[in-house]
């Protein structure tokens, strides 16, 4: 079996990268190799994983500096003897080795508005048409790997923004609620303000790393920004509001 030079972060914030030569097979993924390392030279290596199928969002890390799922990185893309640097996600507090404390995300999950459906029809039922629910399906693909949160420079490079910015994963969440055909609070400013949408400079790194293929920037963030523009900056709507105010004043 060929060998790779796995350079893995070990320890807490004061830790260091340690290199290990580990055997691998072309058909494997990085996570397999990390598991081999864990069963041989580094038995106390901390690493989260669950499905090994890119579906649970547990094995998030940074492979050669790129936020990615370790179970989705194929070894065939590396050459024998190559050095592969594996680091824990930078944006979250490090617990040990490759495991970080992602609880900041759970706090944000509590901050974003919950679904508040419109009243039911007279027969006591809610109705939605297929064409109306298609748009939200994309947002439901999220596996909560938090790679988009990890890569977002707003908090990655400026942790002081963490109080004012819920991050791309929760913009996806807000979009799925705000654009829902049965949502009753879409028009309320409280549904869009206070989450830090205007901190995002649409540089699209979240979209680049999302393993679920969600077009976070194009389909969630920009449309939400545009809904804010409707509320605040659209000259035609200003005019419309002035006219309708004038009419209702009469």
């Amino acid at each position, binding site marked *: 079996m060929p*060998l790779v030079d796995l*350079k893995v972060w070990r320890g807490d*914030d*004061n*830790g*260091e*990268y*340690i*290199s*290990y*030569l*580990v*055997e691998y097979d072309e058909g494997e993924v990085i996570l397999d190799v990390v598991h081999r390392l864990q069963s041989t*030279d*580094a038995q106390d290596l901390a690493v989260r994983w669950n499905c090994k199928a890119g579906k649970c969002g547990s094995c998030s890390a940074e492979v*050669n*500096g*790129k*936020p990615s799922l370790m179970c989705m990185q194929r070894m065939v893309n590396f050459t024998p003897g190559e050095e592969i*640097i594996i*680091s824990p996600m*930078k944006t979250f507090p*490090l617990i040990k080795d490759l495991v970080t404390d992602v609880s900041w995300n759970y706090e944000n999950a509590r901050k974003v508005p919950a679904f508040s459906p419109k009243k039911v029809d007279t027969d006591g039922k809610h109705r939605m*048409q297929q*064409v*109306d629910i298609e748009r939200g399906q994309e947002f439901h693909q999220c596996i909560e790997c938090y790679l988009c949160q990890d*890569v977002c*420079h*707003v908090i*990655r*490079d*400026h942790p*002081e*923004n963490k109080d004012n910015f819920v991050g791309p994963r929760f913009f996806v969440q807000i979009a799925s609620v*705000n*654009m*829902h*055909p049965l*949502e009753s609070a879409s028009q309320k400013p409280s549904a869009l303000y206070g989450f*830090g949408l*205007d*901190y*995002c*400079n*649409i*540089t699209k*790194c979240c979209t*680049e790393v999302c393993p679920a293929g969600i*077009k976070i920037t*194009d389909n969630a963030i*920009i*449309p939400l920004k*545009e*809904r804010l*523009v*409707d509320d*605040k*900056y*659209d*000259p035609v709507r200003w005019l419309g509001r002035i006219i309708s105010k004038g009419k209702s004043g009469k």
Partner: protein
Amino acid sequence: MVSQNTQTESLFNRYAKTLRKDRWWLEPLLVGVGLFIFVMYSTVSAALLGNYWPYEIGPYVSPFFEPLFYTDILPKWVSPAIFILWAPLSFRMTCYYYRRAYYRSYFLSPPACAVQEPADSYSGESTVPLVVQNIHRFSMYGALIFVPILWNGAIRSFYWDGEIGIGIGSVLLLINAFLLSGYTFGCHSFRHLIGGGLNSFTGSKYQLFRKKIWNIVTVINSHHKYWAWSSLIVVGLSDLYVHMVASEWITDINTWNSFF
């Protein structure tokens, strides 16, 4: 299997600038150089040389100067392009794609994904000056006006001296109008206005119609970056081409034989 300790110094706190090993700097570099060349060229061609470098010949008018108006009352040092350029300029400057491009290439905010941003603090588009980017909706309305104007220029370029014909210039101006339309109708603000702002498309026939248009705009929008670049390059080339023909540096190949 051997294990060895190779690195004692802590890379973790700053991740140096990045641990990426690929050529992450290539895209922001190319984009930065490309935008720089275009801005320099258009400033010189349209703003500085406006009245000193002929921009009109036969049926061709450079798209930087289309539509031609008030050309006579202006002092010679003021370029007639100033009536035109503010619209595409503010549209492109505040475009979501170009924002991404120049935030990465010039503001290094961030230069590439997972590459450390050099600035110490960051407030994005939440404060002055960048909050001004929200005027994109205004400039989108302005840009919509220019689509028929440029099509008009393109169609006119097939007619000269009482004869319908075709020349390299007419083809260029036609491609330019087409690409500009793709760029404008693929705009994120336009996509929102057409249907993105709705939560339900099934309330009425009108809404269902908007959904159909929205689907088309969504396809165009998903290639917005390519429309942005192709329309930028072709508008620059069309301008250069008309200037060169008008200055008699090159001869236009066409069915009219000559413009002179």
